[in-house]
């Protein structure tokens, strides 16, 4: 079989994943607290040497690596770079400048968020816009019919009186954090107290760089076409070998 066509096919699949990820970034360029994703590829070279190595050390036959070359998605990397912090003057909006995540209590356990547009639920507790309760150091945070003020270290005051403190945490293993929906993340390993400053009346915009995404898009489109042309060329060569070699 012709490995070249398979290789180019895997490259097209990889580019498709890049487009899917770029598309999600651009869709969420204005979603508060959204962090951009980047597709990291595993190159042909790596796959080749892996296979060679396993052939030597584990005694695999050569056929195995001939069948699986190409480029693959290694991981989708989430870039936790700080997004711009924008003033909304709405006391119910909070963001973090620096490292850290707010803790929220959801149906599937605790999740972590960078920026929240809060409101009150029917019982008078602070919730996110999707209705998940915000977690403080003493559990859920009761506000009732009061104005509140949040200090930089997360302390919540109602009329000068300390009510609770927002549970702002960070994770040593950020790579273990998976995206859940609604701009929230699952926890990674190694929870520590965060160093970032809590800012009331602000939201954090997404850290998507438009120019980066758009140039990516052009690149994806062009590489995809190149792959197609190469497949067509190889197909042409196959065509010659199968149909014209025997002719005089």
């Amino acid at each position, binding site marked *: 079989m012709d490995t070249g066509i398979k290789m180019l096919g895997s490259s*097209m699949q990889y*580019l*498709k*994943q890049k*487009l*899917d*990820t*770029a*598309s*999600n970034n*651009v*869709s*969420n*360029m*204005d*979603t*508060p607290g959204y962090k951009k*994703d980047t*597709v990291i590829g*595993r190159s042909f070279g790596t*796959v080749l040497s*892996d*296979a060679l190595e*396993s052939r030597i050390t584990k005694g695999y036959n050569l056929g*195995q*690596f001939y*069948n*699986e070359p190409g480029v*693959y*998605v*290694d*991981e*989708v990397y989430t870039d936790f770079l700080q997004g711009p912090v924008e003033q909304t003057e*709405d006391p119910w909006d909070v963001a973090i400048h620096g490292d850290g995540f707010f803790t929220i209590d959801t149906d599937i356990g605790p999740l972590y968020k960078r920026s929240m*547009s809060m*409101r*009150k*639920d*029917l*019982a*008078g507790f602070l919730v996110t*816009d*999707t209705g998940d309760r915000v977690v403080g150091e003493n559990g859920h945070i009761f506000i009732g*019919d009061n104005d509140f003020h949040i200090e930089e270290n997360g302390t919540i005051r109602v009329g000068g009186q300390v009510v609770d403190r927002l549970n702002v945490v960070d994770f040593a293993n950020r790579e273990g954090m*998976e*995206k*859940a*929906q*609604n*701009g929230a993340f699952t926890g990674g390993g190694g929870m520590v107290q965060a160093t970032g400053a809590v800012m009331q009346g602000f939201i954090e915009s997404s850290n998507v760089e*438009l120019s980066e995404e*758009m140039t990516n*898009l052009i690149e*994806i*489109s062009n590489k*995809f076409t190149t792959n*197609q042309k190469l*497949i*067509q060329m190889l*197909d042409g060569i196959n065509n010659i070998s199968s149909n014209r070699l025997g002719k005089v």
Partner: protein
Amino acid sequence: MIQGFYTAKTALTFRQMGMDVISNNFANINTEGYKKDEAVFEDALYNLSQKQYPGGDRTYYTTGSGTFISSIGKDFSQGSLKETGGNLDLALNGPGFIGVKDDFDNLFYTRGGSFKFTPSDEEGFKNIINDQGYFLVDSNEEKIKVSAESNDISIETDGEVIFDMMEPVEEGEETRLLMVNFNNPAMLLDYGEGRFGRSDLSGAPYITERSSVLQGYKEMSNVDLAEEMTDLILHQRIFQLNSKIVQTADELESVSNNLRK
């Protein structure tokens, strides 16, 4: 199929919806007592994919599926107050609502408005109704009635109603406007004409004393022109960029379809 195509489509759909919200705010910029709507955008579900490599190791990665509007709610921040001098123009300064009711005893909540006298069913009394014909009620949810001969009515900032030729009342029995608030006012039902009704999501009304009633004032809309304008431009740009992504995804599909000449 290319997921990116549909991912970008979600942004087109929901940004369009966002633009509808903004244009409604624009249309009501001069509507007395109008409260602006706000759409909150969030990212949608993530799919977990798994890839197996030669040699046996696997990796997992997630692919997003776009964006959606998690809620469209009213922003009940204070609108600017305009002095009219009208004796029965009422406005609220601070959070909350005053109660009004229709002919069939259905209770609604409003931020104020222009009221006038109307003859009551009861001989010798008159009620107070607003422009749309809803009766002002007291804290017992009864229509407020004043003596038919009385012309001078004053409403204190705490909502107490005082009129001339009033019979003296004991302390604690004063006629007071029904002033309430909700735990989650953003989810009140909007009936138009500045009227709101409770919903399951807004919670039950509770009496509040945090706001003051201003007699002789009207509350203007809380729409901020500059804010809506920049929002509109942003929505337009996001719409444009995502339509580019749809185009690119379509190109890739077409390239794949033409693999075989």
